[in-house]
C-alpha cells in the first residue's frame, strides 16, 4: 500500500506534471505497437482470408485426389468405385472466370448430387440448398447448362438476381450464364469474401472445355472407415502423377508460399517498435538524471535502493502498457489501409485472387500479446535507467547538491563492444537460411544496429569535434548550441540513436527497393523485347487456368505485319512442396527475337539450341535458390506420360514472381501434354510496323475472341506500377518509424531545455534575447538530427548490403544489382532533417518563454 501511495506521489504526479513529454513517450510506443497490430491484423485478414478460403472450399474432405498440374480422367471415378463403400466422393472442376465488373473470381464446378456432405450452400430463405434440392430445382440447374450459383454479396455487386442473365469471360471466350440461385454468404460461399461462383460440374466441363476431365476428387470417409488403409490402397492404385492430398497439406503449402512475405513484413513492422522502445528508455533516462538528488533524498529518508529502482521499472512498464493500449486502438484504424496494401500485394505476387479481408472477431490472444509485449519492452528499456537511478551512492549525490555536473562519460567499453559486434554481424550474414527464412541476416541486422548504437557516441564526438574547428565562423546561437550538444551528449545520444536507426532503415530499405527497381527495369529492358504481348481477357494475375485457344493464337500469328509469335503455356504444379509454374516456351522464336539472361552468362540462342527438342528445362533464379536446384541437376516433373526426369540446362534471372518457374521447349511441352493453347504470346512485328496500328488490326481480326493485347511500353509501365504498389506498405512502415524517432527528438530536447532552465535564464540575464534562445534550441535540434542522419546513412548503407545480398536473396531468391537511389535518399534525408527542425519548435518555445527570475530562484 505504501509503495502504491509513494508511486502515485512520486512517479505518477511527475508524469502528469509533464504532460507533453508523457504524451510524446506514450505516442512513440503507441505508434510502434499500432504498426505491429495493424500488420498482424492485415496479415490475418488478408493472407488469412486466402488460407481460410481454401479450407472452406476444401470443406469436410479427408483426402483430395489431384493431378499435379494435370487433369484427372473422368474414368478414374469408376476405377475408384470401391471408395463408395468407405465414404463419399465428389468431383470438382476448378477454374477462374472474369465477371462483367472485371473481377476475376474462382469458379467451382461441383457435383450437385454428391457435394452436400462436403460443403454447405444456404439459400436466401435459409434452407440448405443441396440437402433440400427439389427435383424441380435439380432439373432446373441440370437441364439448363449455364447456371451459376452466386453468393448474395456478389449478386448485389453485379446487380443481378435469380434468373438474370450475365456474360462472363472464360479464357478468350465470352460465355452467357444464368443466375440459377443466389446463396447466402456462408459455408463454401463465404470463401474469398464471397467473390466466387459455383456451377454444376457438367456445365463447368463444357464452359472450361474440360470434357471428360476432372481437377480433383474429394473423399469423405464414413464412420468405421480406416483412413490409413484407404490411403495405402489409393497410393497403390493411383498413377504417380496423381497426388493424394490432405486438405491441410494444401493450406500448409499456401502458408509456406507466403511465409517469407509474412515474415519480412512482420519483421519490418517491429522496426517502429524498436524506435519506440528507445524512446521509453530515453524518457526514463532523462527523468532519472534530472531526479538524482530527489532519489538520494528518498534513500536518505529510508527508501530502499531496489524499491526506488522498482518504481522506475514499473513506470517504464506502465508507459509501455499505455502505449500498447493506445497502439491497439490506433492499429485497428491503420489496419484498414494496411489490409488493402497487403491484400493487393499478395494478390499480385502470389494468389491472383482479389482477397477480401475477412470479418472476424478480434484476435484477443494477439491483443494480449501486444499488451504484454508493450509492458515487457517498456520494462526492458526501463531496466537500465531504473538501475542507474540508484547506482550512485546518495552521499555522492548529496555532496554535489544541485550542482550535478553531467559527467563526461567514458565510452571505452561501449566502443570496444560495438567494434566487436561488427565482425560477429558479418559472420552471421554468411549463415544459411533456416526453413527458408533469413534468420542469420536479421540477426546480423540487429547486431549491426546494436553495434552502431554503441559506437554512436564516438561517431558523434568525431563529427562534433570536426564542427568545433569551424565554430569561430558560426553565429553565437550556433556556437552555444554546439557547446550544449557536446556537453549534453550523454543524454542526447539516445535520441540520436533512435533517429539513426529509423534513418538507417529508411536508407537500407530505400536502397534495396531502389536497387530492386533498377534491376527490374534493366531486366525488363533486356528481356521484354517483343512489340506486343497477348493473353486471354479472362486471365488474372498468376492465373494459368485461362489460356487462349489455338485458333486465336493462329489468327494472331498469321496476321500481316506479324513477323513471329512466341507461345508460352504455363500450369501450376507442386514442386518441392511449393506451388511453381511448369511451362512450355517457344525457344526457337526466343532465340531469334527475344532474350533471357542466364546465370552462367550464356546467350539465349546457345541455351535455346540445347533445349529445343530435348528433355531439358531452364529454371528461374528464385526456384533455383529456394529449392537448391542448379544447372546440370536432374529433376522429376509430372507429365501426362508419367513422371519424367528432365535435365536443368541453365538458371535464368526472373523478377516476375518469386514462385519459381520451370520452362521446357514448347515443342517438348506439346509432345508431352498435347495442349495447343497458350497462356501468353510475345508478338514480334515486321520492321517498320507501328505497334498500335497492328494492335488495333489484331483486335479486329480476332472476331469476338476476348484477348488483351498490350504494347511493350504499356506492359513495362504496368510492371513498374505493380512493383511500386507492392512496396507501398514498406514505405508506410518506414514513415511511421521516422515519425517515432522525431517524437523522440522533441521529447529529449524539450526535457533538456527544461533541465537547463537555469542556464537558459542566465543567458537571458547576460543579454540573450528570446529570438536567440529560440534559434539556439532549433540549432540544437538540427544538430542532433544531423548526427542521427549521418550515422543513420552509414548504418543504412550496411543494412542495404544485408538486405540485398542476404535477406532478400534468402527470402525471395532474387539477385539484385546494388544501386544507390541518391536522389530519393537525398530527398528523404532532407525531409527527416526538416522534421527534426520542426521537432525543435517545442523546445525552442520552452527556451524562449523561460522566466529568468523564477528559473534562477528555483535553482
Amino acid at each position, binding site marked *: 500500500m505504501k509503495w502504491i501511495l509513494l508511486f502515485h506521489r512520486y512517479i505518477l504526479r511527475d508524469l502528469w506534471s509533464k504532460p507533453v513529454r508523457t504524451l510524446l513517450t506514450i505516442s512513440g510506443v503507441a505508434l510502434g505497437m499500432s504498426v505491429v497490430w495493424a500488420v498482424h491484423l492485415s496479415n490475418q485478414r488478408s493472407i488469412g482470408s486466402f488460407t481460410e478460403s481454401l479450407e472452406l472450399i476444401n470443406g469436410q474432405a479427408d483426402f483430395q485426389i489431384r493431378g499435379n498440374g494435370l487433369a484427372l480422367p473422368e474414368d478414374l471415378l469408376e476405377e475408384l468405385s470401391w471408395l463408395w463403400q468407405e465414404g463419399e466422393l465428389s468431383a470438382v472442376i476448378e477454374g477462374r472466370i472474369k465477371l462483367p465488373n472485371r473481377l476475376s473470381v474462382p469458379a467451382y464446378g461441383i457435383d450437385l448430387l454428391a457435394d452436400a456432405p462436403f460443403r454447405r450452400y444456404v439459400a436466401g430463405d435459409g434452407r440448405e440448398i443441396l440437402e433440400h434440392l427439389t427435383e424441380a430445382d435439380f432439373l432446373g440447374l441440370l437441364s439448363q447448362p449455364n447456371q451459376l450459383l452466386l453468393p448474395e454479396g456478389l449478386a448485389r455487386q453485379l446487380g443481378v438476381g435469380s434468373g438474370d442473365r450475365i456474360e462472363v469471360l472464360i479464357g478468350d471466350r465470352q460465355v452467357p450464364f444464368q443466375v440459377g440461385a443466389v446463396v447466402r454468404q456462408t459455408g463454401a460461399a463465404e470463401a474469398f469474401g464471397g467473390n466466387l461462383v459455383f456451377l454444376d460440374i457438367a456445365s463447368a466441363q463444357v464452359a472450361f472445355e474440360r470434357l471428360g476431365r476432372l481437377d480433383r476428387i474429394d473423399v469423405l470417409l464414413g464412420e468405421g472407415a480406416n483412413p490409413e488403409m484407404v490411403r495405402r490402397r489409393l497410393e497403390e492404385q493411383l498413377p504417380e502423377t496423381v497426388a493424394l492430398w490432405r486438405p491441410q497439406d494444401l493450406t500448409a503449402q499456401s502458408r509456406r508460399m507466403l511465409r517469407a512475405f509474412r515474415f519480412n513484413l512482420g519483421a519490418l513492422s517491429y522496426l517502429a517498435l524498436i524506435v519506440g522502445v528507445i524512446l521509453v528508455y530515453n524518457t526514463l533516462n532523462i527523468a532519472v538524471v534530472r531526479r538524482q538528488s530527489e532519489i538520494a533524498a528518498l534513500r536518505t529518508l529510508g527508501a530502499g*535502493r531496489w524499491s526506488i529502482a522498482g518504481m522506475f521499472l514499473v513506470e517504464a512498464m506502465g508507459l509501455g502498457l499505455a502505449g500498447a493500449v493506445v497502439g491497439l486502438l490506433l492499429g485497428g484504424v491503420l489496419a484498414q489501409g494496411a489490409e488493402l496494401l497487403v491484400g493487393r500485394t499478395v494478390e499480385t505476387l502470389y494468389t491472383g485472387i482479389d482477397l477480401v479481408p475477412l470479418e472476424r472477431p478480434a484476435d484477443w490472444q494477439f491483443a494480449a500479446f501486444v499488451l504484454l509485449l508493450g509492458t515487457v519492452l517498456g520494462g526492458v528499456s526501463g531496466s537500465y535507467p531504473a538501475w542507474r537511478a540508484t547506482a550512485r551512492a546518495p552521499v555522492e549525490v548529496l555532496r554535489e547538491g544541485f550542482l550535478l555536473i553531467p559527467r563526461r562519460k567514458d565510452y571505452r567499453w561501449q566502443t570496444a563492444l560495438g567494434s566487436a559486434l561488427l565482425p560477429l554481424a558479418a559472420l552471421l550474414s554468411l549463415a544459411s537460411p533456416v526453413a527458408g527464412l533469413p534468420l542469420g541476416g536479421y540477426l546480423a541486422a540487429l547486431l549491426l544496429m546494436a553495434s552502431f548504437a554503441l559506437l554512436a557516441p564516438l561517431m558523434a564526438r568525431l563529427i562534433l569535434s570536426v564542427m568545433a574547428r569551424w565554430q569561430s565562423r558560426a553565429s553565437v546561437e550556433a556556437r552555444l548550441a554546439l557547446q550544449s550538444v557536446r556537453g549534453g551528449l550523454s543524454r542526447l545520444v539516445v535520441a540520436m540513436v533512435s533517429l539513426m536507426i529509423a534513418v538507417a532503415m529508411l536508407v537500407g530499405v530505400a536502397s534495396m527497393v531502389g536497387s530492386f527497381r533498377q534491376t527490374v527495369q534493366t531486366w525488363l529492358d533486356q528481356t521484354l523485347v517483343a512489340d506486343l504481348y497477348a493473353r486471354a481477357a479472362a486471365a488474372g494475375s498468376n492465373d494459368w487456368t485461362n489460356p487462349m485457344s489455338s485458333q486465336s493464337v493462329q489468327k494472331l500469328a498469321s496476321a500481316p505485319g506479324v513477323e513471329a509469335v512466341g507461345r508460352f503455356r504455363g500450369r501450376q504444379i507442386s514442386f518441392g512442396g511449393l506451388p511453381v509454374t511448369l511451362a512450355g516456351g517457344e525457344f526457337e522464336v526466343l532465340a531469334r527475337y527475344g532474350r533471357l539472361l542466364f546465370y552462367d552468362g550464356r546467350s539465349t540462342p546457345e541455351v535455346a539450341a540445347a533445349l529445343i527438342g530435348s528433355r531439358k528445362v531452364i529454371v528461374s533464379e528464385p526456384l533455383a535458390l529456394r529449392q537448391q536446384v542448379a544447372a546440370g541437376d536432374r529433376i522429376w516433373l509430372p507429365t501426362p506420360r508419367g513422371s519424367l526426369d528432365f535435365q536443368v540446362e541453365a538458371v535464368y534471372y526472373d523478377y516476375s514472381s518469386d514462385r519459381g518457374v520451370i520452362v521446357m521447349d514448347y515443342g517438348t511441352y506439346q509432345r508431352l501434354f498435347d495442349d495447343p493453347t497458350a497462356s501468353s504470346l510475345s508478338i514480334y512485328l515486321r520492321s517498320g510496323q507501328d505497334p498500335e496500328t497492328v494492335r488495333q488490326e489484331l483486335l479486329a481480326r480476332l472476331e469476338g475472341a476476348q484477348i488483351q493485347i498490350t504494347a511493350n511500353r504499356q506492359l513495362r509501365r504496368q510492371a513498374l506500377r505493380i512493383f511500386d504498389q507492392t512496396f507501398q506498405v514498406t514505405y508506410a512502415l518506414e514513415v511511421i518509424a521516422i515519425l517515432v524517432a522525431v517524437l523522440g527528438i522533441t521529447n529529449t530536447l524539450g526535457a533538456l531545455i527544461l533541465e537547463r532552465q537555469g542556464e537558459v535564464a542566465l543567458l537571458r540575464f547576460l543579454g540573450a534575447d528570446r529570438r536567440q534562445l529560440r534559434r539556439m534550441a532549433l540549432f540544437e535540434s538540427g544538430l542532433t538530427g544531423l548526427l542521427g542522419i549521418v550515422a543513420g546513412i552509414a548504418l543504412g548503407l550496411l543494412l542495404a548490403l544485408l538486405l540485398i545480398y542476404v535477406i532478400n536473396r534468402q527470402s525471395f531468391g532474387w539477385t539484385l544489382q546494388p544501386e544507390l537511389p541518391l536522389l530519393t535518399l537525398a530527398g528523404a534525408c532532407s525531409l527527416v532533417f526538416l522534421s527534426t527542425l520542426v521537432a525543435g519548435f517545442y523546445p525552442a518555445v520552452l527556451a524562449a518563454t523561460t522566466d529568468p527570475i523564477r528559473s534562477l530562484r528555483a535553482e
Partner: protein
Amino acid sequence: MRVARPPALLPGCLHPCATISLMGVVLTLKGVEKAYGLNGQRVEAVCGIDLEVAAGEFLAIMGPSGCGKSTLLHLMGGMDRPDRGEIWLDELPLHRLPEEQLIRVRRRSIGFVFQFFYLLPTMTVQENVELPLLLAGIQDGGPRVRRLLERVGLAHRLDAFPTTLSGGEMQRAALARALVQRPRLVIADEPTGNLDSENGRRVLALLQSLAEEHGSAVIMATHSNEAAVVASRVLHMKDGLLSP
C-alpha cells in the same frame, strides 16, 4: 591525540559529560576513518574520530568547506560506512549493519535536514512531511504531521507544492519531515546555509526546541558562528579531525 574532548564548560549548559551520564549516549564513534577518491586523488576526509553524543544534546560541528564535515555526518547518519572504526547508534552497530537494516534504522531513528532542503517537488508539504511515516509503514500519521506543521508555522500551506514555498518555508517543512518520526538522532547539514539570517535564526530555534521536545540528539554541521551559538557543544573540524 585525535580524540575529541568536550569543552570544560559551555555557557548556559550542563557539562557535556554530566549530560551524557545523565541522559545516556545516543551515538558513539570509535576510531572512525573514511577516505574517498576525488578526481583520481585519495582524500582522507575523516581521520580517526572518537565521539559520544548524548540524547537531547545539540552538537555543532564547525569547519571550513572540504574539512570532512559532511562525510562525518553521512557516516553518523548511516548513509556511508567507515573504512575503519565503529559507529554505534544506541545499541546498533551502524558500521556493520547490512544495508536493509540500515535503511530501517534511517526510517525509524534518524532524521535528516539538508542545506538544499530536498523536498520532493511532486509532493505537497503535508505529503513530504508524511514521507518518513509512509516509508516506515505508519498509516495514521496525519494528525501528527499536521501538529508538527502547525508548530513550524506551515499549517496554512499543507497542500502547497514545494516550488511555491519560500526558502525559509521549505527548510521548516524539511525540519518537520526530519522530526516527524521522533528520531533518536537528527543530522542537519548546513541547515541555514541557504537562508537569510532571519529565516536561519527561526529555523535553528525550531530545530532546537523541537529536538528538545522529542528528546532527539542533534548534530549540525555549519559554517556559521551565529548558528553554532544555539548548540550545547561545539566541535571544530579540520583536516578530518575534531577538536573542541
